[in-house]
């Protein structure tokens, strides 16, 4: 037990761990949603469009200056969508495993927190872990 009304570096460690767990939990939400959507072929074109919009947003529109023909990805993207579909379906198991590891880690870290309960995040982690396991079983079954 520490004294002198001061917080030492060891006192900050649980806080840092929880902070990391919260970030991991937030990231796992995105990864598991993408992994879940990638299982259904109807959502893959949507993922493609989201990816394109993200590129435009991240580059603050300068992508159209860097590549003046960037608009072709929006207009005649049927072939690109097919190759994108193949890539996404090939990485679906990897995404599911990454998502599963992330929800498991965030669940354990948040369980260790002695100050807050984080009920919503824990319930989400359990649900998504189940979904990811089912997805892995289905994907591996399809591969077999």
């Amino acid at each position, binding site marked *: 037990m520490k004294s002198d009304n001061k917080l030492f570096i060891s006192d900050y460690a649980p806080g840092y761990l929880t902070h*990391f767990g*919260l*970030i991991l939990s937030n*990231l796992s939400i995105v990864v598991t949603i993408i992994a879940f959507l990638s299982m259904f072929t109807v959502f893959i074109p949507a993922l493609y469009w989201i990816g394109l919009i993200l590129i435009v947003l991240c580059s603050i529109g300068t992508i159209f200056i*860097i590549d003046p023909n960037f608009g072709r990805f929006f207009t005649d993207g049927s072939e690109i969508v097919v190759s994108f579909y193949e890539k996404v379906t090939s990485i679906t198991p990897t995404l599911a495993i990454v998502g599963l590891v992330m929800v498991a880690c965030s669940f354990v870290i948040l369980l260790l927190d002695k100050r807050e309960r984080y009920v919503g995040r824990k319930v989400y982690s359990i649900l998504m872990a189940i979904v990811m396991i089912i997805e892995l079983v289905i994907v591996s079954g399809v591969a077999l």
Partner: protein
Amino acid sequence: MKQLKIKFINPRYHNAVVFLDGKQVKFSKVKDGVCEATVNVEKPRANLSVLTYNELISPLWWFFSLIFYLISVFGLFDPIKVKSAVTINYSSTIDLSEEQPFITIKTNRIKVGDSAITISGNAKNYDENNVFVLDKTLQKRIKILRVLKIFIFIVAVLLIILKIAKII
């Protein structure tokens, strides 16, 4: 020896930590915004202090702040953002002459110079310090981090654009 029951209302609001006679009080998990602790005290009076827990006060603040900034994709997935440099400075003496002493600690609304903590319960308290303080060091660190984060973000965006340009 007496047992002092401490109820803390909304400790997460200011990230407050409580010390009793120099020892950090370990509270139960927050439920409905309230957490509780029971502390054994041998003396008839105890010194109570409430401080603000802030990652930017820690010795390795710059390292962890930047690591979390990068891991959380430039703060996009970071739920904890330090914006305020106002901290709690509270210390008082608690009289434990009652048979079953208990106190309830409640943090007030942030305003520099105003009282930070309101104590109620059957144990009398004699405030020594009770004020919200603007921490200059913390304020400086928040500014440094803000500049660093903007710089890192610009560099990262430039690198991503260059990478995309190379691929295309």
